[in-house]
């Protein structure tokens, strides 16, 4: 390709990148604008005389704080449970041969095809009959079930990626099987566990549909529900506060995502090709 062509394509890529990230820019930029700058016939494209008042109002809002607590509790529980359960399951399917192993893997694949949107009513009914509606535990139960299949799939690739010979060499050097596992294999799996944990975090922190169904009490809202609650059709929306709230929820997620995106994609590919 000649130089002009290369330059043109490069500029095209940059233009696409700018257009694609514009909504995110707009979210952050609007979050810094006072209401009188937001509600003008001409949009303000650069928050030159920005203000932190929107952020202050979000943080002073007691409903935000409650929702933050609920989200944090659900997310922490879901991450811990799904990593623990997925880790032992991944060990089983990638380190041992046993009857039903293939069936288990196929089941994991098939489960992921079930449209969650077709299941939420019966999940609600189930939690309702156990008195677990509007409870962190109830929401965690459905989240863990939803997060597990992919987490097992991903960890399975990571476990298979550590050659068993390393462990055997450790046993030749006098370690017990358990000792060899925890001293040699486990440290090598740490990146995989971190990636799986962040995946669980992203899912539980961002989830909307099941939370909408399970957490009907305003005092038990998760952050996405809280954010949606700010935008109501029947009254004027305070867009500055909404954008500040969206930014506060999104920024930690984006940072996590940028850090592990690569590892998650490789775990995904590895899970697909390794035993």
């Amino acid at each position, binding site marked *: 390709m000649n130089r002009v062509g290369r330059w043109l394509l490069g500029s095209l890529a940059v233009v696409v990148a700018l257009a694609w990230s514009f909504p995110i820019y707009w979210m952050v930029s609007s979050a810094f604008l006072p209401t009188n700058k937001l509600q003008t016939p001409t949009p303000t494209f650069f928050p030159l005389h920005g203000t932190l008042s929107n952020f202050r109002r979000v943080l002073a809002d007691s409903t935000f704080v409650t929702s933050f607590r609920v989200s944090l509790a659900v997310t922490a529980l879901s991450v811990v449970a799904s990593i623990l359960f997925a880790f032992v*399951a991944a060990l089983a399917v990638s380190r041992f041969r*046993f009857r039903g192993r293939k069936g288990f893997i196929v089941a994991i694949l098939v489960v992921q095809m079930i449209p969650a949107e077709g299941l939420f009513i*019966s999940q609600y009914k189930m939690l309702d009959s156990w008195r677990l509606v509007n409870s962190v535990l109830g929401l965690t139960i459905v989240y863990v079930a939803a997060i597990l299949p992919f987490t097992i799939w991903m960890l399975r690739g990571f476990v298979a990626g550590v050659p068993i010979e390393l462990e055997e060499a450790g046993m030749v050097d006098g370690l017990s099987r358990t000792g060899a596992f925890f001293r040699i294999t486990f440290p090598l799996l740490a990146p995989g566990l971190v990636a799986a944990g962040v995946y669980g975090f992203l899912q539980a922190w961002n989830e909307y549909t099941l939370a909408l169904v399970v957490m009907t009490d305003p005092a038990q809202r998760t952050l996405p529900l809280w954010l949606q609650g700010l935008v109501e*059709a029947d009254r004027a929306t305070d867009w500055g506060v909404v954008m500040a709230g969206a930014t506060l929820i999104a920024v930690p997620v984006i940072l996590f995502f940028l850090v592990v995106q690569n590892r998650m994609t490789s775990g995904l590919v590895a899970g697909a090709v390794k035993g």
Partner: protein
Amino acid sequence: MTRPRAAAVPAPPVPLTGTAADQVPRRRRRPVGVYLLLVPATVAMVVGLGYPLARQLVISFQEYGLAQQFGRPAEWVGLRNYTELLTDPYVWGVIARSLAFCLVNAVVTMAIGMALAVLMAKVGRAARITLQVGMLLAWGTPVLATMTVWQWLFDSQYGVVNWLLAEPFGMDGMRYHSWLIQPLSFYFVATVIVVWMSVPFVVFTVFAGLLQVPEETMEAAELDGAGGWQRFWLITVPMVKPVLFVVALLQVIWDLRVFTQIYVLQRAGAPTRETHLLGTYIYSLAKEFSMAGAMATIMLVLTLALTGLYIRRMLREEEL
């Protein structure tokens, strides 16, 4: 869950070196211990997914109304819920709209995603990283955060979209245009948002697929006198075809079950009955549990019909 990011769905089987054959596990132990390792995950999935699914299936063949809420045992009605739904033209409208929405979104997403993946592979380092960061921002942001931004962008009074159309483009009629009131423009907005969110996954996966094409093959073809287009169509495209196939199917699955985007836009002031897709329709049936169950089963069958192909292909091609 929300629309999966890195994928709540298995990976596309990108061909890698190092076959599954040399990874076959070889430890043998008394099986009881191994099964214990599977217990926690199995129990969690059976409780959270399997049991509700089974219960829903059972109740879809029963009458489960207000009386049952107060403890009267449910009555078996056979296929009545299904026939009632499937003889209702409105339900067929919802199914047709969902399929149309799904196909349009999947096709547009794939077209843009493939074009951008090729672009990403062709440009220099700086431009590529810029494009990657732009894509990652859209991909990584929580769905609800992006939904609120898009609502703000399309706001009828102060939204940037209306301003852009009215001012620089001089379409005065668009100044206070309400996008969500007409079903067609409602779906247009939904499509813009869904495509915007879905394209990054396609770009990164297809780009990864493009990187798998060995340098040597390309050089050999060049020496044999193949031009740029020939190399693209005869070598690159066939090599990334499996990836494209899987990614396209994933798009179909995700776009068929789209819920959050539609629901949030409906709440922003759209006529719900005219804009329901499968997910939101099932949600609207929540009070009639049997009907919702039957409708969900219909949706499940529809999804499995679309994905059965994919699962069979995965099972055939892979040494698990």
